[in-house]
């Protein structure tokens, strides 16, 4: 992609999507969760496992499921036995990366129908809290001895964003209110809160100032899946394929301490890659609906700006003016996002891609946005605040 070409061999479409309930302490094993989502995606596409050539699996830290070489373990649940199966990984950004990797499985011409499955089971991880897994994400020499908590660095980032853009907590809380209300239209959602108010968010428990309980997404178990196919196959399978128009991803340096915490440059570059491929030069006008990653409410704003859906520091204004509501000019996270539907790390990212698929097809039911949807975008974020993954889809 060194500027030589932006063409590719085969067009790729999404032809089916599925997801489990997003809940804490699901009784199913990780393998069973993966299969429930995969089966639903296959059913929606009218296919069976025999029709699938290749499988791409996504799951975030191995420690959540407590299984070393988790890709091998999940292969059976994801339908990957006796098939070329691979697990790809970019931390929390994995969910959107799974269909990106599935894209080149098809675009290369080597696979015609690919199952993309993301699974996460957070609730049975380290006790007493999932946060204990995050104690091992740090530089083992420089940072780990300090025993940092992940929420601390997000608090720093949130604070920096608030300071630099002069944003009040009330404005950020509006994101949480919007998404937890939106989630009420989602049959899989964990946190449907139809009557939540800004005041409720502001009065919720302080975790690490300025991060409060309702600023943050919950611990969740769940899985999501997509079926992707080549153009020829897609047209056989369905009359309404949703095309993958652009893919992009970026990893910033590991040294998060050296970064501009107020603006996600890595998301901007990932979006730039995807937009170039999709032929998008004005995302604010050309993207009809977006599902940016929102494990914290300020991250939705952060990511909107990184994606070019708002100018720097403009996202809180658009949110306050209602532009990002489901019936607004630029609906953001009509699914309810991670704040509402739940956050089984990798599965949450793929849930967002599934949402765009359903929105473009007009099949999102109560969540369907009011304006016509031709082009949608999903984005995820992860690692040490350094990974951005972006996918643009449309008719």
């Amino acid at each position: 992609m060194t500027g030589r070409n932006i063409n590719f061999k085969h067009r790729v479409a999404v032809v089916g999507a599925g997801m489990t309930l997003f809940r804490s302490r699901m009784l199913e094993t990780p393998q069973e969760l993966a299969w429930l989502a995969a089966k639903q995606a296959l059913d929606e596409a009218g296919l069976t496992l025999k029709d699938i050539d290749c499988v791409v699996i996504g799951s975030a830290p191995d420690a959540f499921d407590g299984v070393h070489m988790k890709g091998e373990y999940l292969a059976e649940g994801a339908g990957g036995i006796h098939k070329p199966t691979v697990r790809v990984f970019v931390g929390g950004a994995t969910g959107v990366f799974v269909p990106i990797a599935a894209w080149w499985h098809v675009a290369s011409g080597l696979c015609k129908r690919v199952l993309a499955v993301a699974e996460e089971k957070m609730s049975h991880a380290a006790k007493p809290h999932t946060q204990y897994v995050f104690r091992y994400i740090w530089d083992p020499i420089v940072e780990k001895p300090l025993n940092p908590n992940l929420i601390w660095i997000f608090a720093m980032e949130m604070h920096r964003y608030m300071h630099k853009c002069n944003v009040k907590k009330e404005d950020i809380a509006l994101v949480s209110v919007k998404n937890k209300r939106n989630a009420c239209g989602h049959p899989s959602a964990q946190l449907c809160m139809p009557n939540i108010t800004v005041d409720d968010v502001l009065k919720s428990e302080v975790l690490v100032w300025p991060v409060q309980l309702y600023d943050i997404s919950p611990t969740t178990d769940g899985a999501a899946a997509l079926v992707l196919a080549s153009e020829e196959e897609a047209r056989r399978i369905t009359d309404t394929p949703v095309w993958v128009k652009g893919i992009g991803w970026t990893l910033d340096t590991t040294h998060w301490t050296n970064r501009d915490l107020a603006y996600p440059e890595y998301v901007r570059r990932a979006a730039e890659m995807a937009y170039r491929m999709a032929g998008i030069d004005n995302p604010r006008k050309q993207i009809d609906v977006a599902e940016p990653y929102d494990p914290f409410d300020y991250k939705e704003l952060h990511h909107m700006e990184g994606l070019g859906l708002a100018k720097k520091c403009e996202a809180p204004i658009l949110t306050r003016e209602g532009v990002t509501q489901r019936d607004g000019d630029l609906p953001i996270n009509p699914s309810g996002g991670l704040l509402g539907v739940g956050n089984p790390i990798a599965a949450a990212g793929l849930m967002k891609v599934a949402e765009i698929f359903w929105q473009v097809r007009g099949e999102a039911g109560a969540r369907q946005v009011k304006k016509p949807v031709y082009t949608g975008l999903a984005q995820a974020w992860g690692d040490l605040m350094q990974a951005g993954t972006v996918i643009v889809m449309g008719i």
Partner: protein
Amino acid sequence: MRVGIAGVGWFGFQPEVVDYSFREMMFKAAQRAYEDAGGLDPRKDVDAFISCQEDFWEGISISDEFAPDPVGGAMKAVYTVTGDGLQCVGQAYMMIKSGLFDVVVVESHGKPSDVVTLNEVMFTATDPISVRPLGLENVHALAALEARSYMAKYGVEEGHLEAVVEKAHRAGAKNPRAVYASPGRSRASTPTVVDPLKEADIAKFVDAAVVVVLASDRVVRDFTDTPVWVDGVWWSTEISTLEYHDWAFPHHAREAADGAYMQAKIADPAKEVGFAEVDNRYSFKELQHIEALRLAPKGTAKDLLVDGAFCPGGRLPVNLSGGALAEGVPFEVHGLARLSYAVAVMRGDFKAEVDRRDVAVVHSWRGVPTTTSVVAVLRL
């Protein structure tokens, strides 16, 4: 669209790399690979980077966080495959064939010397409900069961394992990075680990990093005059439930090989392949994998081995490097170690006793309890 290898770099292959962190090992290997690729600049010449690694091997949750900087990939398209390094090559191959990417760098590193509880980590890869409660004290027991099953089904005897070990150490003596090569060592005199596996049947661990630069045929000659082409690469996963998988024959290796041969248009690998580098982290696995890769009919690898067919200078030399038994197992670097050795032989960088170095097949398996193999066909 053809995919070529433009450069290879490696570092380590020592039982314990004391003076370098895993990140410094990555950097060293990357630096050498970029130099090998004509002084490639990762900041402007590379479209994407892939790192093959696993969280539990690293002792870091979300270990891909540390992938970008040492390979020059920060603020570029970097991701991780949790699999053997050769699977990263498979992803790079697809990415380039898609037409969207021209240059993709593949990296893998392993530092087993940092891990003090290797058996426990390996055992954590077993099913948490059905197998882990058994509390196996030695994970090699799973390989021993496979060995017994294979040996019983195909009449393989301990003498054949002895021959594999002897061949590996003799060949490894000529491989500059085979630190465990010990020609003349008697397998029989080493202690039994888990019957029928003796200490000499089991490869030791080694610290290493390997980086490979892959490029499309459109640009590969910008970096090298002597590309080695990847003409096919495929992988397959057999059932992960140990109770159900075939203990006597690695179907995953057969399926991966068939996919790679089909892409490379190889109809009769036993005749068309010049030499092979296959996984031999257990001595019996070399025989199994030779058969799975159709380099010998099922059950005959032992006889052909005794006849010298797979020895250096033989009809179809297998593991001219000595393989893992001589080099050691550097976790997920294993497949790239096999690939980089094959590339060096094909380019004439390593002198080797082989008649045909124009076509090579490279194979990797990830060890017990995994059931995934990757196979690549390389051509000059």
